[in-house]
């Protein structure tokens, strides 16, 4: 679901033992229908309460969830299930990073159009819907769950110290563009020593790539025929240069989210801003704890939009109860399901109807100074433009982020960074 979770679950290597059961459960659906559906998820989807609702409206169906805490542990497991054709749940979650890969073997998944999902198209954010669709538009592989619209979290107290405005509307006006965000950061670091402007370079790259690609060609590292265009796509180069500028000027703490150093830093004045997808709010609240109470707030992101994270639900063909599984997937991604998930775990809906629900659109976050997060994220997500992601997109992104971090660590010279990034991208895209 959210990328953060896999990072958070750093410690989980030893605890990979959830899986004990075989697939499917019950026999074929007979007249006295009694079946069990298995749902495979990772991290927190907030579905527990929704299963009960589904069971009540579908007598004879029980739903069992197999949850793995981190995406890192979930990925190889899902690969084996899909590759061997057995073991997968009736409904499986596909994160944004792995969805394009599984799009390549979409024959292993049922076409949700065959189960009446076409009528839901109007309910979803168009780009979210489109990413779950095969390129020719004939097969719907996945139905969107949550999205991570990108805002900017900032420390009010540190802003005050630097003489910057602290009100979230005024703060958002400080940085309509990334250049202005950079300039504000330099102003800040000139006033407050010992505190970096940003936590790390990765979110800047991620957001700017998506913004540039959305405004421009509609694709980023790979064109729509899956050719690597990393070094020729101006949208990428410009985004890379933007992110590099922060690294070069030592304006980030070079940390990766949800890692132990990052968690520790949240209890200190290590950095003043954190690019905040909706699910990040929970992470900041958790790790900043009492220290961060009344210190954090959330404003809009430079460049106007962006997203980070989010998943889809798909039904593998190996499911013995494809029809019921598709029903469940439709229920969980429908307006009612997404509102329920948001209430449970703050996962921001990709279902527009759910976004318009007062429980979402009117949501206030008391940890972040009662910020109207439902409204802020709703506006941000509305301006996201679809970007095509190739199957090796994640591999390239990781490799390029490593180059940026290495610049911050002083291991790669800024002037060599682009060349290194191109090489790394080529290797990763192989």
């Amino acid at each position, binding site marked *: 679901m959210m990328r953060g979770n896999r990072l958070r679950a*750093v*410690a989980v290597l030893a*605890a990979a033992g959830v899986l004990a059961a075989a697939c499917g459960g019950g026999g074929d659906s007979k007249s006295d229908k009694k079946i069990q559906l298995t749902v495979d998820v990772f991290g927190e989807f907030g579905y527990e309460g929704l299963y009960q609702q589904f069971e009540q409206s579908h007598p004879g169906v029980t739903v069992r969830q197999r949850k793995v805490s981190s995406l890192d542990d979930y990925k190889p497991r899902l690969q084996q299930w899909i590759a061997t054709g057995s073991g997968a749940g009736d409904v499986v979650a596909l994160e944004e990073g792995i969805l394009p890969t599984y799009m*390549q*073997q979409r024959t292993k998944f049922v076409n949700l159009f065959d189960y009446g999902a076409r009528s839901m198209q109007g309910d979803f954010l168009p780009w979210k819907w489109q990413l779950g669709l095969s390129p020719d538009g004939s097969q719907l592989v996945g139905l969107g769950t949550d999205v991570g619209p990108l805002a900017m979290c900032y420390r009010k107290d540190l802003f005050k110290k630097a003489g910057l405005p602290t009100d979230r509307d005024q703060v958002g006006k400080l940085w309509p563009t990334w250049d202005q965000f950079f300039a504000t950061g330099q102003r800040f670091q000139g006033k407050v020593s010992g505190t970096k402007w940003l936590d790390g370079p990765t979110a800047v790259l991620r957001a700017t790539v998506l913004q540039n690609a959305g405004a421009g060609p509609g694709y980023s590292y790979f064109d729509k025929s899956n050719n690597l265009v990393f070094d020729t796509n101006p949208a990428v180069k410009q985004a890379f240069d933007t992110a590099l500028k922060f690294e070069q000027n030592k304006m980030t703490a070079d940390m990766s989210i949800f890692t*132990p150093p990052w968690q520790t830093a949240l209890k200190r004045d*290590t950095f003043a801003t954190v690019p905040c997808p909706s699910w990040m709010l929970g992470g900041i609240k958790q790790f900043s704890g009492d220290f961060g109470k009344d210190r954090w707030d959330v404003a809009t992101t430079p460049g106007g939009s962006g997203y980070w994270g989010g998943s889809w639900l798909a039904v593998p063909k190996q499911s013995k109860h494809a029809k019921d599984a598709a029903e469940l997937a439709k229920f969980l991604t429908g307006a009612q399901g997404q509102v329920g998930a948001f209430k449970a775990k703050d996962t921001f809906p990709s279902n527009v109807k759910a976004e318009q629900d007062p429980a979402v659109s009117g949501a206030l976050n008391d940890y972040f100074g009662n910020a109207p997060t439902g409204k802020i994220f709703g506006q941000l997500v509305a301006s996201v433009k679809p970007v095509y992601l190739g199957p090796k997109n994640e591999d390239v992104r*990781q490799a390029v982020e490593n180059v940026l971090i*290495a610049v911050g660590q002083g291991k790669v010279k800024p002037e060599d960074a682009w060349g290194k990034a191109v090489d790394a991208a080529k290797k990763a895209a192989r």
Partner: protein
Amino acid sequence: MASRPEGRPARREAVPGGDGRREGASVTALDARPVRSASRAGGAPPKPSAWRSRLAKLDLKASPYAFVAPFFVVFLVFGAYPLVYTLWVSLHDWGLASGTRKWAGFGNYSYLFGDDQFWHALVNTVGIFALSTVPQLLLALLLANTLNRRMRGATVFRIAVVAPLITSMAAVAIVFGQLFDTDFGFVNWLLHSHVDWHANRAWSWTAISVMVDWRWTGYNALIFLAAMQAIPKDLYEAAAIDGASRTRQFWQITVPLLRPTILFTVVISTIGGLQLFTEPVLFGSGTSNKMDGGATHQFQTLTMYMYDSAFGHDRYGYGAAVAWALFLLIIAFSLLNFAFVRRAGGTR
């Protein structure tokens, strides 16, 4: 005195160095002998039914194989088959997630020879191995020697040295992550330094070696201790009467008599060291992809690269090729270390 130590360990060291091979051999020897003598006694003089003699013959011929069969069956299923299967996988362009599977011949291997990251990971692996194993075995030897003395609460200490092995790896990750933190870490505070343990290649190796040693020194010490207890006390008494100091006794009696055990630990450490995975992965928990071994792969070991290729980057075939390369490397290194330690011991 020189000749006696040579003879002793061969008999005694079966306990600590009790690897499967040796025990397997002694079991067959024990089984075969009574059968042979029984048939010799009962087979020749009277002639019972032909059926019975055939049965006896079959028993004579087949039962040793039946007795050793379990090992080989298990080995075939869990050892040989995966090995061959991995080889087969490595000859393909194979992606588990993308579903591609194309015959590639030796394409993965030829790529591997030109793959900088593979060689980089190999250097990392061997570097961390050398940096961790040498002090580890020396430390284990000294630790075992200390534990071998008469002391109060010996059992408590002997158990305590293997406590790291049963410590939860999650806890280890957190504790060592904090110890080696650049800004807030205990080690930097202690040394009044500002070392970036993660970014710098040599320092990251050092930190990982400390983790490895913390975990495995006690294990090796226990093996050494078991071997030391098999050394007869009268050797030390004789040496003491001759005026040999404690240190001299250690180097002249203990170490030479432990040679087979040291060989064993060196080989086991080589196998384990070249497959080093858990510690560097945990050490990398501050990076976005734990398998990267840092932004410039400064502490990525071969097994991490293998796993990352196969499962992280969906190159199952290439991961298998890395696995096979690693397999061959381990054999080569084990033989090399074996020869080296034996040579080094032989000159004494």
